[in-house]
Each structure stands twice: as C-alpha cells, then as structure tokens.
C-alpha cells in the first residue's frame, strides 16, 4: 500500500518546509524499452531491439553518467581558472558510451582508449578525487601527478593515450594477452572518427582478424576529428564497415541502453573465439575538441543546442525512468545533490593537495630495478631514481 507522509516543519523564521517521504513500493522495479535497430555489416543478426532495465541499474547508470558530466564541467571550470594546464579533452555529451560499455562487459575485461579519457577512468574504477587531482597535477592524482589528463591508468584499464590511433594496436595486444592466458576475457579498444584513418588501425584489424583476437574495436564517432568534420576527413564515413572483413554494427551512442545491448552482443560474439568485432557509436561532444577549442568555428551553436535539447543521454534516461514510474523526481534530485557534493569535495582536494615533491622527479623510470643516478640540468646536479 502506498504511504504518503507529509511532514510540516515550522522553522523559527516562520517559513515552512514540506518533506514528502514516499515508499519505494510505489515505483516500478523494471521495465522493457524499445531501442533503435543497429545497422549491420557482415552480420545476419544484431543486438535485440528490446531491453529490460531494472530500477537499480537505471539509477546506477544515471548516477554514473551524471557524475561524469559534473566532473567534466568541474574540470572546465578549473581549466578556466588555470588550475588545470595543458591538454584537457572533455567528454560531456558522450557519457552514454562509457557507461553503456561498462554495463555490457565485466570488470575483469579490459579497456583502452585515447585522450578523451576522464569518463572511462571513472567507469573503470578510479575515484573523481583521484582524477581531478591528476588533472591539477597533485600527488594524490591517480598517476601521482606525473601523467596529467591523458595518462591515467587502473587495473584492466590501459589509459589514456596521447598519440592518436596508437591505442588501437595496443588494445589488440591486450586482446592477444587475453587469448594467450585463456581466461575468456575481452579487450574493448576505443578510437574516434579522427583516428579511424590511421594506418596502424588497419594493421591491427588485420592481425586481430587473422589471429581471431578477442577484441571489440569501438569507434566513438562524435562527427568531428578536432575541427574537421567526418565528411572532410574520410572517404567513407561508414566507420562500422571499415573493418572490411570484420563484422560491424552502428549504434545510437546517445542511448545508454542501446550501447549496453550492443556491447553485450559484441562481447558475446568475440569472447569465445569468433574473433574481433567492430562497433560504431554515434555520439556527440558538447565541448570543443579540447579546452583550447571553443568548438564553434567548425559547427554551429544551433547544432550543439539541438543535440542538447533532443538527444542528451542523461536527460533521455531520466525521462524514461520518470515517465515509466521507475524513479521519482525527488530521488533524482537527491542523487544530483549527492553528486554535486562529491564533485565539490573532490575539487577541494584537487586544489589543496600538494604537488608531487621534487624528490619524486626522477622516480618511476624503471620497474623493479635498483636505484640509480640521473643527471640533473648540469653535471653537478645528481638526482636519484627509485622504482
């Protein structure tokens, strides 16, 4: 039986606060949703066009996407305050990709991506605190402040790679290790529409197909490689077909459920020896390529607004859940408030934690090695390196 309890609190100044406590017995535990059919390449069947979402999963995806969104916006703020320096490539708009992919694989699977990496670093298990502190170059950062925006790592997560396209053969190599070690793990290897024209990607495709490596190649097509639209960069913009002999599917990357379903499908395909598969996620980034790019010289503000208005991944999920009675507005507001608090605390840490000490300058050159001397800026300056 639904219980609605209204509590009226009379505050000293005379204002009134109404709190509604509502039992969750009210809400739908799960619902089935239609998702867009995927375009297929060399596949007879694709992912299901219907998927079941539980309330629990839905709230988790919402929370994760919103955390990534707020974290990226905080990074934007810190960058403009010059507390973050150098490169900063933000992921807001693309959250459904990172969250949907993580939902479709196991924590024991592997993932590697390029430089637009903060979202994946979070979904792969690193805290917002450690991510922001890495961006601000502090010793509490995940890479001790020595890597920066593009070089964050975690278990089964290989960064964070600054050289466009390089992560693709690396990911195929991780997949080789998965096959070698025979634990039925897969590697998700991400690249963008800009990277899709790199030669080494095709070399990786060839070897992955030849050796049937358990590699899910995923092209996050956000329509622009830096300032160059896909039409101006690629002779073929059907990125899901460009694996040629590798089967492919094109997925709505703004819908976290579509991404999840497609990832599950892809993981099933390549986990047990069928070889690699390619996914193209059609997505969009609100920010420019990086913080040095306002992002409006090669696309219109109208276009950006339209995507925000019609296809925002977080809004889409929220609307779905609310209109299907799977979550209440209050609940969502609470989650938002919690996230805001988490981000604020993380930013507080990231701006107050000290920079790595100078003694750390030459450390971490070699792993598992005896300490050795490193030449400083002049022959009289001798520094020390410890593993």
């Amino acid at each position, binding site marked *: 039986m639904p219980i609605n309890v209204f509590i009226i609190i009379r505050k000293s100044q005379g204002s009134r606060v109404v709190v509604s406590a509502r039992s969750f017995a009210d809400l739908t535990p799960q619902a089935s949703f239609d998702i867009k059919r995927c375009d297929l390449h060399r596949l007879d069947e694709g992912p299901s066009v219907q998927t079941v979402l539980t309330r629990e999963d839905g709230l988790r995806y919402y929370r994760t996407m919103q955390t990534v969104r707020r974290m990226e916006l905080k990074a934007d703020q810190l960058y403009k305050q010059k507390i973050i320096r150098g490169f900063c490539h933000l992921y807001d708009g693309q959250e459904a990709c990172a969250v949907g992919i993580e939902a479709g694989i196991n924590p024991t699977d*592997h993932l*590697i991506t390029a430089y637009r990496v903060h979202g994946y670093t979070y979904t792969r298990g690193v805290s917002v605190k450690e991510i922001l502190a890495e961006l601000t170059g502090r010793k509490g*950062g*995940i*890479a*001790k*402040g*020595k*890597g920066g925006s593009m*070089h*964050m*790592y*975690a278990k089964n997560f*290989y*960064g964070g*790679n*600054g*050289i466009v396209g*390089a992560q*693709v*053969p*690396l*990911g*195929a*190599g*991780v*997949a*080789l*290790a*998965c096959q*070698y*070690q025979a634990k039925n793990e897969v*590697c998700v290897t991400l690249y963008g529409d800009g990277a899709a024209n790199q*030669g*080494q990607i*095709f*070399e*990786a495709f*060839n*070897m992955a197909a*030849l*050796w049937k490596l358990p590699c899910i190649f995923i092209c996050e097509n956000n329509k622009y490689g830096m300032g160059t639209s896909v039409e101006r960069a690629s002779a073929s913009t059907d990125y899901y077909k460009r694996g040629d002999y590798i089967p492919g599917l094109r997925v709505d990357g703004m819908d976290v459920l579509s991404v999840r379903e497609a990832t599950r499908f892809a993981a099933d395909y390549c986990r047990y020896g069928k070889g690699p598969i390619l996914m193209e996620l059609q997505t969009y980034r609100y920010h420019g390529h990086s913080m040095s790019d306002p992002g409006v010289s090669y696309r219109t503000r109208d276009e950006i607004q339209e995507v925000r208005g019609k296809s925002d991944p977080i809004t889409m999920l929220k609307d779905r859940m609310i209109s299907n009675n799977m979550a209440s507005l209050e609940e969502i507001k609470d989650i938002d408030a919690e996230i805001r608090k988490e981000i604020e605390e993380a930013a507080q840490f990231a701006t107050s934690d000290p920079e790595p000490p100078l003694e750390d300058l030459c*450390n*971490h*050159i*070699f*792993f*598992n*090695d005896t300490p*050795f001397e*490193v030449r400083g800026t002049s*022959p009289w300056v001798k520094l020390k390196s410890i*593993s």
Partner: protein
Amino acid sequence: MAYLRSILRSGKNGVPAVLRREFHRTLPAAMQVTVRDAIKEAMDEELERDERVFLLGEEVALFEGAYKVTRGLWKKYGDKRIIDTPIAEIGFTGIAVGAAMAGLRPVVEYMSFNFSMQSVDHIINSAAKTYYMSGGLQPVSIVFRGPNGAAPGVAAQHAQCFAAWYGHVPGLKVVSPWSAEDAKGLLKSAIRDDNPVVFLENEIMYSVPFEMSEESQSKDFLIPIGKAKIERKGNHVTLVSHSHVVSRCMDAAAVLAKDGIECEVINLRTIRPMDMEAIETSVMKTKHLITVEGGWPQFGVGGEILARIMEGPGFGYLNAPAVRVTGVDIPMPYAKLLEENTLPQIKDIVFSVKKMLNV
C-alpha cells in the same frame, strides 16, 4: 679473459668449424658458439623458463628467421609462443607493447632495426615513457631485438646504426652485444628485465664463433645490463667501442702491439645506461681516450662519452683531447670500395691512436 679466435677476420686456420648445437645436450668445458646460436639459446632458455615469454616478428616461425636466428624454436614451441606477423611493423609493435602491458613478456624481432623506424612511436611513447607517466602503475616488460647497423652490401636504407637514437631516451635500456657470451647473457637479462629493452644485434657478427666458458653455458648465466667489459688490457690508450666494431679495435690493438703500443679495449656492452665508471677508470690509467663506432658522428655514442668525460673526473687525467672515430657522415653507399671507406677500418683506428700519441 676469454681467448678469442675469429675465423672470418684473421683468416687463421686450425680452429674447427662451429659445432652443431642441440638443445639440452650436456656441453664440454668450453665451446665454440656463434653469436647467432648464442642468441637463439638465450631465447630458448627463457621461453622454457617463463610461460609468459613469446616471440613475434616477420618470418620468425616457419621460415626460421630471416637470418636463421630463431631456427628450431617454432618447431619446439609452436604457434602460440612463436608468432609470424604480417609486414606491419607499427601494428605488431603496438600489439606487442599492449600484450606486455597486460602481463606477457614479448620479444619483438625486427628484420632490421631500420624497419623499427616505423614502430618508433610505440617503442618510445607506448613503451619507454609509460611507467613514468603512470606514476609507477603500468610497467612494460618487453624486448625489441634485431640486426642493427652496417651489413655488407645492404646500402643506405638498411645500414643505419640506431644506438644513438634509442640511447637518447629515458625509460629505455639499450644493449649492444659483441661476443657470443655478450649476446647470450645480455639477452637473458633483457628478457628477465621488467622494462623495455632495445637489443641491438649485428648481422656481421651472427656467424662469428666465440669460445663460451663453462659458466656461460648454464641456463642461469646472466650478464648485468649496464656493465662494460675490458676485452684487452693496456696502458697507453683506451679504445671504447660496441658491437661489431669491437672486433676492429681488437685487430687494431694487435697491430699496434707490434709497435709497442698497448691499447685497452673496452666493450661497452650496454649503450644505456652507459658504464662511465669503467671508461673513467681506464682513462685515469691510460690518459688517452678514443671512442670507436660504426654510427654517424653527429650526436653519436662517442659524442656522449666525450661530453661525460669532459664533465667528470676523467678529464683531469687526459694528456690529449679525447677523440671520436666514427662512420663517415654520409648515407651508406653500395659499391664495395665506397662502403669499406664509410666505416672505421683497422687502419683508421691505428692512424688515430698514433696521431693522438704523436708517434
């Protein structure tokens, strides 16, 4: 000190041809082993010792190696451990580095280090820098090996020496063996090292036999990376060299000995980290230093050694400015006469020593 005979250079007879090696046969006290076989032995022993070690490269499996270095390994270990790759250097190097990141221990063969230029981004940006950039989270245990530098008649695009290029990079270890013992002990150390190691072999040395001590035939025989070896003691001048050029230094030393000039020949063995202590100790004794290399002079290995001698304690002991003997600063020509005159010959080393000593 190991007694060296090299058939091909001195032309002396009396030394038996290289004995055919079989795996795991008990070996007599000292044996003649070619550098090629020593390299293969090292890989065989390490493949056997650690499941995570595997080889990949062009023609390493079925063809038994472009220079037959990996002969027999594929038959013994199979497809999983010895992998033939397509001709895709940047692709397979990236794949190897990725496999290393995920915990395997690949040994990548380049048919020539000249082809490694295609892969250099992965060697440096994906391998060398990663442990540092990750603040110690992500080690990369990998070996890149293959023939480096000059080989007879291969001309400009196939004869460049990459010791200085790779030696430039922090995060890499760079090894350049000369003898069979060097090759075996250093390659085993390289494979067991948890960091990226560039292992520069040389085609000229592959067929040269060396005596391998009993100790060096053990499966746990390791030569530490970063330690040079004094191949010949002397008091008058220090010759520092690496790879095939060590042979020429030894020959030049024999020629000079007839005139009463005793050279101390140092075989660097490792380019990075370089054993400056060995060089300095020698220079303090001989007071004269000549570096000898096959690579180009500008920004080369010799240039680095001279700079460090200037900056270190050795400088005060020098009786003459230290000098570099190097390859000529040109792309490698094809015609035999031109090719011969592009690398330091024995007579060039002898000439330089005499010039320095003013005799």
